[in-house]
């Protein structure tokens, strides 16, 4: 469903992503786990079509910059980006109209789920950072995307929103969506993932699968620290 083939992204001489390849199938959750500066957000932004890169990214077989691919994609950025002068409800109306979608009541449900319904007439600038993040999530979900990419989605969320977020991950997985979640917090990914890619210095240092046949015997946490702390010692 989401396929990344040999993606390299450079900022001048700095290589942010170095020949990365992986895929996320329908009904799967893949995690990008890594310390700060590992290149997780860069690959997420490349998938969202926000950065230029070398290589190929496809969404259900469509190049990620085509309109067909964009229709299928939902993107939740690391920093909540909302419009200061639009109300909460208008954000969802804006996305719905821009995506040429009739109102199916999904937006209202999302607002209720993330406890934003009573804030529907508040302006974007009046929201706290956590509420902006919730609104950002609602905006990414309102058009029912089939491939959803989350960049550090839990940062700034309150416990209720984190609970809803995790429930949302599971629901979307069951509904057959492909989810890619970038995070540096191992605790936040729990056990609902199918594959975790540990990123260091712009590349994959290891990949662990969440099924009995996986060759890795270490837990995700053990594997992560074995890789990242080894790097520190070597350094």
């Amino acid at each position, binding site marked *: 469903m989401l396929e990344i083939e040999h993606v390299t992204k450079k*900022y001048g001489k700095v290589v942010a992503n170095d020949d990365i390849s992986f895929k996320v199938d329908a009904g799967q959750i893949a995690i990008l786990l890594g310390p700060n500066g590992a290149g997780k957000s860069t690959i997420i*932004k490349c998938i*969202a*079509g*926000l*950065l*230029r890169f070398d290589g190929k990214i496809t969404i259900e077989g469509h190049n990620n*910059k085509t*309109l*067909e691919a*964009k*229709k299928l*994609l939902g*993107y939740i*950025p690391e*920093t909540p*980006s909302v*419009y*200061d*002068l*639009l*109300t909460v*409800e*208008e954000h969802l*109306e*804006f*996305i719905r*109209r*821009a*995506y*040429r979608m009739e109102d199916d009541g999904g937006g209202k449900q999302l607002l209720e789920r993330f406890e934003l319904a009573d804030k529907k*007439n508040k*302006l974007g*600038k009046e929201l706290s950072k956590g509420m902006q993040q919730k609104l950002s999530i609602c*905006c990414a979900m309102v058009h029912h995307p089939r491939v959803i990419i989350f960049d550090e989605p839990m940062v700034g969320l309150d416990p209720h929103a984190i609970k809803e977020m995790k429930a949302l991950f599971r629901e979307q997985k069951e509904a057959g969506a492909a989810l890619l979640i970038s995070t540096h917090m191992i605790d936040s990914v729990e056990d609902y993932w199918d594959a975790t890619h540990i990123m260091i210095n712009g590349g994959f240092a290891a990949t662990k699968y969440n099924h009995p046949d996986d060759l890795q015997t270490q837990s995700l946490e053990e594997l992560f620290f074995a890789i990242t702390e080894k790097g520190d010692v070597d350094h």
Partner: protein
Amino acid sequence: MNSLAYIYLMRLKNGIKELIKKPAQLIYILFLLGLIIFSLTAGDNRSAETAFRDSAELTAMATALYIVMFLMTVHNGFSKGGAMFTMSDVNLVFPAPLSPSRVLFYGLFRQINTSLLLGLVILFQYGWLSNTYGVSVMVLLSLFLGYVATVFLGQVTAMTIYTLSSSDEGLRKRLHALVWILTALLVLYAGLYVWQFAGDGILSAAAAAANSLVARCFPVGGWLGWVFAASVSGTIFIPGLLAGLAWLALLVGLINISDRDWYEDVLKTAELTQSAVVAQRKGNLEAVPAKVRIGRTGLNKGWGADTFYYKHKIENRRGGLFLLNRSSLIFAVLIIIMSLFMREGGIAAIFAFATYMQLFTTVMGRINKELTIHFIYVVPEPPFAKLVQSLREMLPGALIEAVIIFIPVGFILGLGKADIATCVLARFSFALLFAAGNIIVERFWSGASKMLTIFLYFLIMVVLAAPGLILAVLASSNLMLISENVTVFLMMAIANIPVSFLVLFLCRNMLQHAELNY
């Protein structure tokens, strides 16, 4: 070394090192310095026979500018205080075991740097000041220093007012009322003065009002205007300088003896400054008003790409920008006022000045903000459609701005209807051209630093405007349509409009290839 001096010097040193590491910024600063030197050397086209305008007009303008700047800065103090400290000062310097008085002086010292930077724009005015009023470099420097001192004292006054009144609503209202009363009295006095002496000509009556003893006794702006007026005649007005110093001492004393914990008072301002800096880094050059009247809710219109246009209409309504934003309006008034003084230069000089100012207002369009948020890139609509719809909101504003500026200017200069109409058209064509220049920069250098972006923007604008200027020069000597003005303006518009559309067409896939400018 004293820790505050250490921070100050380290910031300065690292700023210089940063310049060396980032040659683009260094080139930009050298370019600016070059421009200042060029305007100081090449701007002087005077000959021995040149007849200058009355220098009373110049001193009047300076006094009026100082008073307006001082009042505007002080007015800010009632809601926000003075922006002397950054968030890093708040987090690192405030909790440190340092005396608040020393921290205050550190803030004041740093504020001088900001005031100096704000005053640089004065140095670029040498060309017309020299040619119109015979201003020497020394007089220009005196005008510059007066401006810097006004902004600095305005900031300190704003901080003092905020510190003294932030916890006392009654005192805040009384102080605010006092500032309004003083301003109203000054305006009333100037109005009556002009009315009484209108027979001598409105312009000379207005200049006399601004040079009167009453205006010059007005706090800070008036005193420094007096000091500048003395410098024009080659003397130093010591009482004005002493009054400024006494004012500063009074304010610092008031803060120190007020026994108020002013750290808390500047915290809010530091946070606002920080968010403004972040917003600017993200391309949002237009401040969002603190109080917004939401009014009718819902887009209710738009489908696909044109949803961006209807969204911009709502944002403009809530931002208080029905057709013109505040900076456009200020520039429009400034240009109309300047046309009173630049009448001898004709419409060409005023149009050139207005176009230069237009560079700054066009760069503030809503599309710049749009390009910093991911929605415009991820919405599944053709990139060209999204681009055109995002630019659409600026068109009516650009036309209205042209009309608002050039109808009054046309009357002041006594231009004919055809001259005014073509002037409006040419102005509108430059709005399109500047928007096109903005698109080119975003298309090819969207990830570059803001400083480099602005530098490139200026360079590209020179290139894009060249065909229109060349055509206008060629046509003015070979073709005559109604008048020379009509020929020149029409030719500029004829070249600018297709150039703008060509740029737009060539950059039609910009949203496909640009990088999100976080």
